[in-house]
């Protein structure tokens, strides 16, 4: 085999190594436990995290706290298992989680906040709309010219990510994060 062909093969091996790592970290869902459609990584921010968890957290949730301080639940799909999309409208329904403080934030496909005219980026324990029975009920979706505006506006098209943060979660949840009665995420109407 010629030297130039051999060099090309080694470069290809390098590219395969780096590329497979990047694809694994960005395309394969994070490990963890599920509460409904929400997934929580038990080692985010922890010194006990494995190398893949550490790298995933650095890419998608840098500077996380460990689960004693904060639990981060991430939803990427609705109740049907369909990927969440910024151009769709969703209704979230649930009970207030057992934590000192909680919030749900909508993130664009680049992991940053959606631009919106109302400057509303999250719904939290203090601002969450509740129905007459005390359920937390609110909607996420694109800003509309007519009709009821969403409580949590999105913009554009593509992946939507919802993060539920629980600050100082109850001890039972710290021990068993899968026990959370997590909010349902149901699509409302049809997507644009």
């Amino acid at each position, binding site marked *: 085999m010629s030297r130039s062909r051999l060099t090309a093969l080694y470069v290809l091996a390098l590219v395969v190594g780096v590329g497979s790592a990047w694809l694994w970290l960005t395309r394969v869902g994070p490990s963890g436990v599920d509460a409904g459609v929400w997934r929580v990584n038990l080692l985010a921010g922890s010194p006990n995290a494995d190398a893949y968890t550490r790298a995933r957290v650095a890419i998608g949730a840098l500077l996380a706290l460990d689960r004693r301080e904060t639990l981060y639940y991430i939803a990427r799909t609705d109740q049907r298992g369909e990927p969440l999309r910024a151009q769709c409208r969703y209704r979230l329904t649930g009970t207030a989680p057992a934590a000192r403080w909680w919030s749900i934030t909508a993130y664009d496909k680049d992991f*940053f906040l959606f631009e919106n005219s109302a400057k509303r980026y999250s719904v939290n324990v203090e601002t969450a709309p509740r129905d007459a029975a005390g359920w937390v009920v609110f909607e996420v979706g694109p800003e509309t010219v007519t009709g009821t505006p969403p409580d949590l506006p999105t913009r554009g098209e593509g992946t939507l990510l919802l993060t539920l943060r629980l600050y100082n979660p109850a001890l039972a949840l710290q021990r068993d994060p899968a026990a959370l009665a997590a909010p349902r995420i149901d699509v409302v109407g049809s997507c644009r």
Partner: protein
Amino acid sequence: MNAPTPANRKSLRGHLLALLLVAVAAHALTVWALPRLIMAEVLRVTRNEGATSSGAVLRPPPADHTARRIVMPSPDLLYATCSLDLSEQAAKISADIDYPRYWSIALYADNSDNFMVRNDREHGARALRWLIVASDASYPVAAAPDVEIIKAPGSRVLLLLRMLLPEDEAGRAAAEAARKTLRCD
């Protein structure tokens, strides 16, 4: 076409093994290096931009859609960060946070691990006085009785203060006033 000789077959097997090793090593190195590279950049930016501010602390405005530095910023929190270099001396951290809502100070190693966090309930109302020291420090470490000595796993550390922001302006002003008491010397 000539059949490969035993020597050629041995050479081919050697190259195939070497190619596999290169791919596996590149994969492992990428996974290992990514958090360290990202943290190095965060530490660099914090150090450069915090250098000109009071107490060497970077105090960004509350996160909105224009905040593009740290992924998944929380819009409900007010942040302050310090980049600490413990290679030649310890870092003195002080704060007098009189604030009725949640706050915490977390310390991150240069591989992004959160090796320490303390929140308002754990710390109480007393003044915060920390001396942060690299675990392998060769410099002398001495501190007054009211100063807590914290050992870091390495010489580069990011300190991150989080304060829960209320909706009202008076509450936000109180958060800002409390944030300004943080110093990293």
